[in-house]
């Protein structure tokens, strides 16, 4: 699997996701600077976490307008898979690659903590190594991860099975206790209609080694390798 990790000014988890990809594939991803209008053809494009453009204006709003994103949109439209994590999710939402928006956390504070996620479907490139209903533990680290969509959009994505992960309690109960940011319907990750783009707030890349946060995020990358190699 060949992959490209985009780097915007202010990206800061590009190294973490590159490390996770290398761990699973044995191969370093290509790091693509935001100013590039074009880049090598890859099987996967990753929009990493961070504070692109300082999160000034609105998280992800400026990065969504950068030259490289025009190319990402073109490729995503042709079906090239895009994994958008945290600030990457915010960028993808701003760019219209996935439905919904990410607002300030309901408690108005940055939150870094392990959270539990309920896997909603195993029927996707990104989740094929998980079981539907499985509970995994991965960290979040964000100030603006409060997912929101209007009633029509929400109904549509729920009906079409576009929810990838929901925040839950350790036993899998989807209720207020496991929701770290106030996201509507506890949504932690969503797909585009074709399930070729996934945006999620949690950081599976920081849960790929036993001593350093556990291994529950590793299967996401292993699943991608299986689907894209």
């Amino acid at each position, binding site marked *: 699997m060949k992959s490209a990790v985009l780097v915007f000014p202010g990206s*800061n988890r590009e190294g973490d996701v590159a490390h*996770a990809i290398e761990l699973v594939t044995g191969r370093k991803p290509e790091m693509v600077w935001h100013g590039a209008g074009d880049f090598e053809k890859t099987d996967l494009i990753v929009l990493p976490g961070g*504070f692109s453009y*300082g999160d000034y204006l609105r998280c992800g709003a400026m990065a969504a307008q950068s030259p490289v994103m025009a190319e990402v949109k073109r490729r995503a439209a042709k079906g090239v898979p895009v994994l958008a994590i945290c600030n990457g999710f915010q960028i993808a939402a701003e760019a219209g690659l996935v439905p919904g928006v990410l607002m300030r956390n309901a408690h108005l504070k940055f939150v*870094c*903590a392990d959270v539990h996620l309920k896997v909603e479907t195993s029927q996707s490139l990104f989740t094929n190594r998980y079981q539907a209903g499985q509970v995994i533990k991965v960290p979040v680290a964000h100030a603006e991860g409060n997912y929101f969509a209007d009633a029509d959009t929400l109904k549509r994505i729920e009906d079409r099975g576009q929810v990838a992960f929901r925040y839950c309690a350790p036993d899998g109960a989807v209720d207020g206790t496991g929701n770290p940011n106030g996201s509507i319907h506890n949504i932690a990750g969503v797909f585009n209609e074709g399930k070729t783009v996934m945006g999620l707030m949690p950081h599976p890349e920081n849960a790929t080694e036993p*001593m*350093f*946060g556990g291994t529950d995020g590793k299967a996401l990358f292993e699943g991608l390798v299986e689907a894209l190699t």
Partner: protein
Amino acid sequence: MIAEERNPPVKLPNEPVITPQIVAEHGLAPDEYERLLKIMGRTPTMVELGIFSAMWSEHCSYKSSKVWLKKLPTKAPWVIQGPGENAGVIDIGDGQAAIFKMESHNHPSYIEPYQGAATGVGGILRDVFTMGARPVANLNALRFGDPKHPKTRHLVSGVVAGIGGYGNCMGIPTVGGETNFHAAYNGNILVNAMTVGIAPTDRIFYAAAAGVGNPLVYVGSKTGRDGIHGATMSSTEFNEDSESKRPTVQVGDPFVEKLLLEACLELMATDAIVAIQDMGAAGLTSSSFEMAAKGGLGVVVELDKVPMRETGMNPYELMLSESQERMLIVLKPGREELARKIFEKWELDFAVIGRLTDTERMVLSWHGEIVGNIPIPPLVTEAPVYERPWTLTPLPPPLDAAKVPAPKDWNASLLALMSCPDLASKAWIWHQYDHRIMGNTAINPQEGDAALVRVPKGPHGTSHKGLAMTSDCTPRYVQAHPETGGRQAVAEAWRNITATGARPLAVTDNMNFGNPQKAEIMGQFAGAIMGMAEACKALDFPVVSGNVSLYNETEGRPILPTPTIGAVGVIDDISKAVGSRLREAGLGIVLIGETKGWLGQSLYLREACGREEGAPPPVDLAVERRNGDFVRGQIDLRRIAACHDLSDGGLLVALAEMCIAGGTGAEIALPTSAIPSHAFLYGEDQARYLVASKAPKDVIADAERAGVPALLLGYAGGDALSVKGLLSLKLSDIKAAHEAWLPAYMNATD
């Protein structure tokens, strides 16, 4: 070309006449101004006066503390760079160095908590990456006033958000620290920030300029009018007008600093740099001065070339601004274009603003006219140094444990201690810090005595090393007896590193004290230094960097003397490291070290009895070392599943912390002894650890051979903590009490 030797410089339009009042406003004492006149041989211009004022401020010159700081040991075979550079550097093997320092931002954080704390983090990060290191961890030590004080909640909220706001955006994990509350900090909080970075040992960058004619380059943000006179402001006592000094607090932009970090590291990978220095306190003044002074050279600065944020700025403002996210670099000749391209790629300002000379003078020009001309060596060699009068604090008589009442209700006493402000869970704080980014965090906050991160791959390939880091000080001990308190702070830092299995290597100190012009405050400083020096020598734990913050007083009331010790250690095989979480039923719980039941200055005494008295627990450094070396050896043998040193709150609090961190209960029994139970369980005798082991009998047998006191107290298991005949509490109840206080306090609206 500028006529460098023209002297005196021209007067600028609107330049005020230097009066005694203007001199006093610059924080220079009359005799210090006499000294200035002798060096200059004439009346200075305003910008020259401003430069002397900044360079001779307590903050930049260490004039009251210098004679004492010299008493600290600074050398060891693994020390690459001791105090005097931007940060200390130690060799951690495999061609890698750890570069670290702790620095205070106390006064700015009190005046404007978010920006004060944020720029404190920004400043210490720059100190570390200036030397070529990529920062890998941040820590912080915070001291706030009484929770009941009307400003405390606002200060906690702002400081924590500021630290998080800066560090999170930079992408450096904040992995550890400490937070205390005490009424002595009501009008003067402490915000001490520490950064640790990693660099290849053959690519460390220093501040000493070299090469006459080499270009002096300014990079980073533009210069604005923020933070003018920050160094002078932080060198005076607070009074009721201090909040009017808000304009002297700088405003941080972590996004620009992230770009600056990446751009600097990119430039450092080339061979273009001769010397580099960040612009911290006293901005362009101290950075250009220090680079030239360290290199024995002169410098010409064309101030009109400095990138400016606003129009109408004058030389005085440009030299004294403390605008953030700026660096000064001496480049090799002909490398300007290479460097310019890198900084332009990162969308940062880049300007050649001067060059090095052989005149040993700092010459400032402004649109072709000389506006300042100062000889460099005498400003350094003839800087004021004070041997201020000092009176040592006498050792209070020890407190007889028998005269301290036992708790009437043991369960209630433990719940009260676990939920008191100093011991309550600080999760509300550290959940606002990204402690997981970079993916190397092996021990999270509250899961071990020290934070532990994996050392990234170095020049010799993949590393299995871990870096253990901690920050420690028990101010109430230092207040009671500064020598013992100084010794204890170092010993506790050493013990916390040891408790993870790592070898303690070196220290950075952040000396926070009151007004040094008072003999008893200077005596606290002297006493703390004596204790620290003794401990650092005995434990082979040299001081490689540090910072002094004096005048921490408001309306004449000083803070508790707080010599914060930041420490770093290394474990060669990180898979052997342990935290403090008790995670497995059946583990034997062994107490290492001797218990005498010392209740003087203990938290039990303060929280349960409302008394702060007696001598602090004595620190026997030989015993400290023997017990610590033993524990580290047992961890290396993989005999230990969890380890926790005994400090605030003593044995019972330590065990309760281990239980709730790991989610496993424990049942222990006290040995028969003459020590009252409450002294045994809540006493704060030093050099002690609790270890949990699958093979407790082997640990005890080894301890006997090593001459280390060791006692099997009981076993892990169940969902309760119990002490036979005294106490039994459900873990969930202890956890609830421990975790409830801080969020409830912060969310209250009264």
